[in-house]
């Protein structure tokens, strides 16, 4: 479980505070809030890229900053909001980079690594892109590849910053369904930020809102809280 206790999120200046919250495994946790309020900063803090300005985050009852970067990469994977395609980097090679904790010191793939990549491709429906270069596919396709890359990393927690931003409606729905499935079947904790609320609320996720009025993270029950926030 990722636990936060009296945390202040931000970089350079404070963005918002988190009193007390815990993200357990086996669930999809969905985070929303107005543009610029600090959703990305929040996920980056959980990923270890940013330090909280105040307070301590713990992962499985051990402080996050007590983990080495390498250890952390075996527990938490993070997909930033925008991906850039790289010329001459095939989707297969890209996904294999997600297996870095498993491949040998030269990055050579084992049978198991190849299987994991094949499985991820079929789950996310990107098998047909295998040999395409990552700068030659659409941003939606690249986003699916990025999620698949986090999936093959086989971490307990997956953080996704607006994973559905570039996807069409069908793929948005598919991604949410897949994330729900993965969280239950493989007992993973998935934390995502999104603006696709209408769709997301059809799923049994845990919802969190960063309120502008008090600049705090709140766990919310119904859609009303959201409407209040965005209509204000």
């Amino acid at each position, binding site marked *: 479980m990722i636990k936060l206790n009296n945390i202040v999120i931000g970089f350079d200046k404070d963005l918002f505070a988190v009193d007390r919250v815990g993200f357990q495994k086996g669930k999809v946790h969905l985070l929303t809030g107005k543009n610029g309020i600090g959703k990305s900063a929040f996920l980056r803090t959980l990923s270890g890229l940013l330090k909280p300005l105040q307070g301590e985050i713990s992962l499985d009852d051990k402080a996050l900053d007590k983990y080495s970067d390498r250890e952390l990469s075996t527990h938490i994977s993070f997909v930033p909001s925008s991906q850039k395609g790289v010329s001459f980097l095939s989707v297969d090679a890209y996904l294999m980079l997600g297996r870095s904790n498993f491949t040998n010191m030269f990055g050579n793939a084992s049978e198991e690594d190849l299987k994991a990549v094949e499985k991820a491709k079929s789950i996310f429906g990107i098998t047909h892109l295998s040999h395409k*270069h990552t700068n030659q596919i659409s941003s939606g396709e690249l986003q699916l590849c990025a999620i698949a890359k986090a999936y093959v990393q086989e971490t307990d927690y997956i953080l996704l910053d607006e994973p559905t931003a570039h996807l069409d409606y069908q793929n948005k729905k598919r991604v949410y369904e897949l994330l729900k499935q993965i969280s239950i079947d493989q007992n993973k904790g998935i934390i995502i930020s999104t603006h696709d609320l209408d769709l997301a609320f059809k799923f049994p996720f845990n919802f969190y809102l960063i309120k502008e009025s008090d600049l705090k993270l709140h766990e919310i029950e119904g859609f009303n809280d959201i409407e209040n926030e965005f209509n204000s």
Partner: protein
Amino acid sequence: MIGVKSHTVLLFVVFVGILGLSFFGLMLGDIPTKFSDLYPALLDYSSQDINQVIIREIRLPRIMMAIVSGAALSVAGMLMQTLFQNPLAGPYVLGINSGSSLMVALGVLSGVGFFNSELGLIGSALLGAFVFGLFILFTASFLRNQIGLLLFGVMLGSFVSAIITILEAGSQAEALKSFALWSMGSLNNATVEQIPMIFSVFIITCFLTFFIIKPLNILVLGEEECRLMGYDIKKIRILIVFITALFTGLITAFCGPIAFVGLAVPNLTRMLFKTQNHMLLLIANLLFGAFFLLTCDITIQLFSDILLIPINALTSLIGAPFVIYILIRKLR
């Protein structure tokens, strides 16, 4: 995996090409030598035979330097391009050579004893390359623009050449002449006795590069991805700059500045092999780099009756248009 076989075949062909060109180069020169002189010159040497002396003392070091320089500069270019995620980066354009040049100029032109020694020369060239490499790295941390960084490198080069010009103006004719020859770039400077040392440093540096293959592969996705995968990006960056400085400084100390090899060859290999797998790229750059500079050297030897072209001039003649081609492709 598609194309693994054809990649191996291509690399093998280039390898055979290097061997062939090397033997051809050993035979090539103003004084005709027989093929039968090769074997004793290399393995059963007698300093009494003038043909053997020519092959062993003059041609062999030159061929070896062509191979090592081409390979080292190409790998250095690959490292810079991956580190800065910029296909137009290279040890020469980023001004890493300039660091070596400045230090060598200070040594040769000032005439201070230590710098004129062999060790002093190599040491100062390596140090100059490393310091300038760190300087570029530091600049890149706030100058995010790709073209901006290159302009910075070019300006660094101009600044250094201005200092060198001032040094030249105030130095003795003899020192001036030896520095001018050095700055034209030449594969002839190393002696056969220095070759084992140069090769050792080269091999060790290649070995170091093999250890960072995996972070290099991830680095094409950006430094953040590298951190998320558990690599200490600060260490990796400095290690890359260190390796680049070893390659560049070593070659610059012995051969003078050789332009564009480190820019053109890594781009060529990425285009040919269509990969970002740095294991393959590393091997390809070693082989293609050696092949390219060997070809340049042999071309120079073939035309040496008519005109002696400095190696730096020839690599620029071929490399600069190629870079312009990449620029147009990229910026269009």
